[in-house]
């Protein structure tokens, strides 16, 4: 019997990195949907109810923190774990992410094996 694939939504405006993460995580058995801006991210997350969301903090149109608040503020999506990707490891930004309900954060530059380990830790 095939193990059911975990569904993941990755919101990132850097298309190159998005492609790489999608490739690496797909190889690890995830079903990845990559979004390049924050405009309709919440609607898609609400519609697809993935197992986990990875959100870049700096996104065009709507930033990652706003989307995180939307996810956590909605009873349908509030249980979906979210990992935030931040460019700077600034204390106040990280605290804001946790206050808004993020499960974890990763600072850029990052490595996909570490990202994968964090995802697995949260999902297991």
């Amino acid at each position, binding site marked *: 019997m095939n193990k059911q694939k975990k569904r993941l939504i990755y919101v990132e405006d850097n298309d190159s990195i998005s492609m790489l993460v999608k490739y690496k995580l797909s190889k690890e058995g995830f079903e990845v949907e990559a979004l390049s801006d924050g405009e309709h991210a919440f609607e898609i997350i609400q519609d697809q109810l993935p197992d986990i969301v990875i959100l870049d903090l700096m996104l065009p149109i709507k930033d990652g923190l706003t989307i995180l608040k939307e996810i956590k503020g909605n009873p349908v999506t509030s249980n979906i774990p979210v990992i935030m990707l931040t460019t700077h490891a600034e204390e106040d930004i990280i605290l804001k992410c946790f206050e808004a309900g993020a499960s974890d954060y990763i600072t850029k530059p990052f*490595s996909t*094996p570490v990202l994968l380990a964090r995802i697995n830790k949260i999902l297991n």
Partner: protein
Amino acid sequence: MNLLYSFILSVITQISILSTLTHIILFLFICSFLFVCVVLLIRLKDLRFNKKVEDFTQYWAPVFFNYIGSDKDPNEFTDRIPKKNASIFLLFLKKYIHSLSGKELQSLLNIINNTWIFDYLLSDLKSRSIERRLRAIYYFGIAKNQIIKPILISFLTIRNLQIFFQSARSLARMNALETTERILAGARLQKKISQEILVSILLEFNQEVCEYLIKRIYVENEKFKTAIIKVFRNFNYQDASPILRKIIDQAKDKLLIIECIKFAGQIESLNALDNIKTYLQHPDPDIRSEAVKSVKQIGGDTESLEISVNLYDNSWQVQIDAAEALVNLKPVGISILKLVAVSQSEPRAASIAQMVLSELSLESGQNV
């Protein structure tokens, strides 16, 4: 006869004006046309290049992604890439170099250091094209290629700011601390170098650079001294505390004085406190403002009375800074503010004290 003559003359003049106008219009039209053509050509060239990049990405991405982070020999992958695509490949690499870390980043740097890309970039270093040289310097710096270090050091004396900047930055990225002095010497040859550029170079080193810079600070000019103090401030280099006093004493440049005062406050340099207190009455309000903040950071509530003098400063900004400093110096600072707030003799100082105290009440939820 005269009338006819003037009529003919007027007609000729008008025709001549019209003709000149026609020429101008025609000239402008041709210029506009040529301009549009040039813009279109550039756009077409860009589109063609973008298409090439897109095709390259589509074709090579899966192979590249398989290689990233693996223990595979990079040559197995790069040998398959046509050398005519080197520029595109380098652009492609750049997108990942800045976003990845650890083993994945190392695998990318191996491509630069251990494949034909190395030779390609090496030939670029010797190229007449500044653009190509800059690109090679950048990639070798990112890849921390030690073999290239002597070439980069030789570039420090080239009187081209871009070449100097990129070479110095690449050496700093390699954390080649032994080149600090040469970088400063090279910077002195660059007439157009700004303090910001110098700071951005020095910040590429790790914190150990401060130990090299502290030895140089006395011999540098005030512009460079300011840059060095900025670097110390960025690395929070406490060991510079003993020398700060002398630097402030000798400083004439406003920016250097401000930078020293800020730094002394940041590292709470007791050695420099007495000197900084003298700046509370400096003629320049920007310097007085920084001195107020710094004295508060170093001295704390024992300096409340000294700072309170600046509540009556002739600069509104200095008054506010003094009030904001005092409000944090409980309980002495707040007692002083309360006294000033009810005084009649200095209405401006009183209103500032009232404003700061009411803000404190709002924040704390208690009537102060």
